């Protein structure tokens, strides 16, 4: 059994029946369930937890909570985690940790733990489970309002557990909250962000305290996304250090922290203590420690007349040195002595006196914890009496209660919290039948003496060892140097010195920095202000924020109804937007080029089939549908006859191509549009936007039917035979079923809409069926086509086939800077229509330039495949940069049908340059290419009728 020499034999909230073993800096220790790593280390007598970041000075535990600047540790096991505060790590069996000088270490393997998020809603969210927060939550809960109480500690109670006060009230109130039907108490939950419209983010540490015993099916940490109608911030206050020489040694800690170690963990942080204070609260710590057997050598109180609290201490036999300050300390690895000196009118007078001590408690006043309040948009005002910033107005429905708004006494905090909770619920229409009674009276509060802000102990030489920010090793001297450099703003001072930028984000140092800086600059702290509070309040793990949006859940994968078929055919997939589309279907031993060549041949020479189900489909209905489409497509749609289909292009108002697709007229007042795969949602939004916001007088309704219909493209000179075989009632001959017509038919026993559309130049049909029949259709086509060698093909073959015909792909051959005219599609731009969206832009000076980049084909040497993206230049020698560029390759393929490679490109004045030679820098060589008409295959269009 390892010794715990600083553990008291009784008391505290630890579970002495659950001893735990852990290692720190390579040494084995023991503690108890209920300990933090810090309390267990203090119990074991470990004073030095780490060295400081810049100067390498030894440092020890300074606080008892999340404001800790010193005791930063690396968790080594059970799984590495960097930079946690020992003061918040709950002890568990098998914990292995080490003190950190500044940089944490990430695991080099993936984190196996689960993380998740949950949305929550409430009438009243209370942040902080101390006296004010507990009272607020209880008062609100009694009204029947939906209440959430979030508290960062393992159990509610807050400072009451630090001080040991009102234990019965804490237990009773906690039990009442636990029993309240509409109330949820979230312990181990830190509210770290307060965003607009009372959206607050909290992280709950659910299983970490169980160590290796944590159940793997539960999330380790959970992000609560809380939408609260009303918020009560009962976030308490942070005790403030004081700047004096060597104020950083292990053994120096905030007074309230020492009291917390005593009451929560039955740990005394030293044997012989000195207290240095500017207010009353530290006397309670001194008295409690003395009662626990610590030799409290003296209380140095900077105030000349400390008042009743001092008298109480004196009565208990503690020497009170009124009007004294600590001006220095001794001790190498840990504190061995404290030097005090009298002050008179704020100046040191008289001799310095050394006092032997291994513990120095410091209390420089209290800073309300207003981080969330500030994040919420709350304004702060400086209170010169408290030397602290207090909440002022806030535009959100937020109340601040208790110590967080400067209430110092416990009864005041309780009453303030209860009132805030009651009123928050009342504002939402909830009132209590039985209001919360005040807790049984503790000792009547004694008349306190006001605290006096003290930033820097005056009259010291060693200001380069008087620390303001312990974690960043920033001293008073550093701040003095910064102000001497000309810096006047607190932001500049902090950035110059890095004060407040460390792991603790200045929780203990922020106001002290402002106070010291104000003194240096000779201004009021109110004038200097504080830096902006930014989320998160305490650091939050990336993995917690990412939650379950990982792996297959990271971004939805959309699949068509034929996905299983593609898997069965051995498809390789391409991501297109959120869709998985078959890219190509390699057979045994085939590489991509071979598979694509085979698929292309099937489409050009026999029959092939493709899943075209990802194309967007929009059903547009209404008497004005034709007029509506006329305004959005560049060409005329209202003249389309029922039963027929037209290709169309849409432009944005800036005249650039936005999308293309087909429009089928189903009835006089009904059209079916297709969009590109990636733009389906955007096009529907586009239609709705114009319909709802610009032309509400047009009677038209748009409905997405993208997922309703499965679409299979049946392509190739023998496609008609396959279709005829499975659609015996359909007249499939060219005269009866012309190009760009559609027919309703029964195909393979399934109600279908068959469209004669071709994106390959071959005879082709697109067969649409309700998506739950997709598999049946696919199988029927496959079976019927098998004698003809029907071949499934993917997007790559589709791209080759269309490129051979010079058909552009929006998003590949266009990039948001290309007009229909640039694509050589002047024919799709109506000259007759008075207007369509984008038309006006086409006549702008730059948009109507004749030397714009235009879509052409390129013929490189027949066996050279130009990489897509290759730039083109006019000369056969590379000049010094910048080299003028003539255009770039947008698409590039090997063509089985052409027996050569080819490319599509956007080339300056391209159409006028057909036949010209350009050069393509490829891998250090200049490849000569010939500009050609983009339609390389079957320019006469003879093949589309089979």
């Amino acid at each position, binding site marked *: 059994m390892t010794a715990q020499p600083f553990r008291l034999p009784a008391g505290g909230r630890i579970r002495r029946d659950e001893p735990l073993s852990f290692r720190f800096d390579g040494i084995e220790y023991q503690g108890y369930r209920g300990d933090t790593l810090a309390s267990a280390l203090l119990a074991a007598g470990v004073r030095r937890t780490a060295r400081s970041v810049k100067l390498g000075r030894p440092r020890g535990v300074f606080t008892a909570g999340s404001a800790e600047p010193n005791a930063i540790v690396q968790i080594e096991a059970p799984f590495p985690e960097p930079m946690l505060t020992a003061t918040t790590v709950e002890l568990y069996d098998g914990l292995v940790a080490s003190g950190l000088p500044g940089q944490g270490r990430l695991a080099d393997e993936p984190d196996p733990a689960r993380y998740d998020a949950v949305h929550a809603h409430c009438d009243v969210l209370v942040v902080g489970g101390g006296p004010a927060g507990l009272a607020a939550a209880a008062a609100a809960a009694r009204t029947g309002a939906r209440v959430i109480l979030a508290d960062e500690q393992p159990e509610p109670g807050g400072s009451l557990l630090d001080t040991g006060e009102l234990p019965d009230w804490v237990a009773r109130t906690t039990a009442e909250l636990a029993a309240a039907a509409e109330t949820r108490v979230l312990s181990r939950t830190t509210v770290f962000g307060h*965003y607009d419209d009372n959206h607050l983010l909290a992280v709950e540490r659910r299983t970490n305290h169980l160590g290796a015993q944590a159940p793997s099916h539960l999330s380790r940490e959970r992000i609560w996304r809380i*939408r609260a109608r009303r918020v009560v911030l009962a976030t308490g206050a942070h005790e403030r250090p004081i700047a004096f020489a060597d104020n950083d040694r292990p053994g120096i800690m905030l007074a309230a922290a020492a009291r917390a170690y005593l009451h929560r963990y039955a740990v005394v942080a030293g044997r012989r203590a000195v207290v240095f204070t500017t207010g009353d609260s530290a006397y309670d710590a001194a008295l409690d420690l003395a009662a626990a057997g610590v030799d409290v050598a003296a209380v140095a109180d900077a105030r000349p007349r400390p008042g009743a609290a001092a008298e109480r201490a004196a009565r208990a036999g503690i020497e009170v040195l009124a009007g004294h300050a600590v001006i220095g300390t001794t001790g190498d690895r840990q504190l061995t002595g404290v030097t005090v000196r009298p002050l008179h009118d704020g100046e040191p007078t008289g001799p310095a006196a050394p006092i032997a001590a291994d513990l120095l408690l410091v209390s420089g006043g209290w800073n309300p914890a207003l981080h969330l309040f500030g994040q919420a948009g709350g304004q702060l005002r400086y209170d010169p009496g408290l030397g602290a910033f207090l909440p002022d107005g806030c535009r959100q429905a937020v109340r601040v209660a208790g110590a967080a708004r400067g209430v110092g006494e416990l009864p005041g905090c309780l009453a303030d919290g209860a009132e805030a909770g009651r009123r928050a619920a009342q504002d939402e229409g909830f009132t209590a039948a039985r209001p919360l009674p005040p807790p049984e009276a503790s000792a009547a509060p004694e008349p306190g003496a006001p605290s006096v802000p003290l930033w820097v102990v005056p009259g010291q030489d060693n200001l380069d060892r008087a620390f303001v920010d312990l974690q960043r090793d920033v001293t008073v001297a550093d701040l003095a140097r910064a102000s001497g450099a000309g810096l006047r703003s607190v932001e500049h001072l902090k950035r110059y010195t890095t004060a407040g930028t460390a792991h603790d984000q200045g929780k203990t140092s922020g106001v002290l920095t402002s106070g010291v800086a104000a003194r240096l600059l000779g201004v009021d702290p109110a004038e200097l202000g504080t830096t902006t509070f930014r989320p998160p309040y305490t650091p939050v793990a990336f993995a917690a924020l990412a939650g379950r949006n990982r792996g297959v859940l990271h971004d939805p994968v959309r699949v068509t109804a034929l996905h299983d078929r593609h898997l069965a055919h051995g498809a390789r997939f391409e991501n297109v937007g959120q869709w998985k589309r078959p890219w190509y279907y390699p057979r045994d031993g085939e590489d991509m080029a071979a598979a694509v060549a085979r698929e292309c041949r099937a489409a050009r020479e026999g029959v092939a089939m493709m899943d075209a189900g990802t194309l967007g489909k929009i059903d547009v209905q209404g008497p004005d549908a034709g007029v509506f489409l006329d305004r959005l497509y560049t060409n005329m749609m209202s003249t389309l006859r029922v039963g027929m289909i037209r290709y169309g292009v849409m432009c944005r108002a800036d005249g650039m191509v936005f999308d293309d697709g087909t429009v089928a007229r189903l009835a006089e007042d009904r059209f079916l549009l297709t969009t590109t795969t990636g733009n389906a949602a955007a096009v529907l939004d586009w239609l709705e936007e114009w319909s709802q916001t610009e032309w509400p007088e047009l009677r038209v309704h748009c409905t997405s039917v993208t997922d309703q219909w499965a679409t299979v493209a049946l392509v190739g000179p023998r496609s008609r035979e396959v279709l005829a075989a499975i659609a015996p009632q359909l007249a499939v001959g060219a005269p009866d079923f012309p190009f760009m017509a559609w027919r309703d038919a029964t195909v393979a026993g399934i109600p279908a809409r068959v469209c004669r559309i071709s994106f390959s130049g071959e005879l082709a049909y697109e067969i649409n069926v309700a998506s739950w029949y997709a598999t049946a259709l696919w199988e029927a086509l496959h079976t019927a086509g098998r004698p003809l060698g029907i071949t499934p093909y993917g997007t790559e073959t589709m791209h080759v086939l269309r490129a051979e015909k010079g058909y552009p792909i929006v998003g590949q051959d266009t990039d948001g800077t290309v007009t229909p005219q640039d694509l050589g599609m002047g024919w799709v731009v109506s000259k007759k229509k008075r207007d369509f969206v984008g038309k006006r832009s086409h006549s702008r000076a730059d948009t109507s330039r004749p030397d714009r980049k235009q879509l052409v084909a390129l013929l490189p040497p027949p066996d050279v495949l130009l990489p897509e993206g290759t730039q083109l230049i006019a000369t056969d020698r590379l000049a010094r940069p910048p080299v003028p560029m003539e255009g770039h390759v947008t698409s590039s393929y090997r063509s089985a049908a052409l027996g050569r490679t080819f490319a599509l490109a956007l080339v300056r004045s391209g159409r006028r340059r057909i036949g010209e030679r350009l050069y393509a820098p490829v891998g250090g060589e200049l490849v000569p290419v010939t500009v050609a008409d983009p339609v390389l295959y079957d320019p006469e269009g003879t093949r589309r009728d089979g």
Partner: protein
Amino acid sequence: MLLIPCPWCGPRDEAEFGYGGQAHVPYPQDPAALSDREWARYLFFRDNPKGPHAERWCHSAGCRRWFNAVRNTATNEVLAVYRVGEPRPVTG
């Protein structure tokens, strides 16, 4: 995460909405009659105030309705929502 009051569905999380730019910028009656400069104003120039801003939103993951809102760009407070075609309300 703002809470945006859809005129139809009530308050919903910002993630359900699409931002649609400044409100009350109608498509010109006759674009062909505009100079290039006037057309450019319609295409590209929008108010960018620090303060109340009348703007269009679409409840795209909800009822898919477009509506207008006056939002304070300095605080993100939504001061009013109103339907397309209605005039901008007076906000405090």
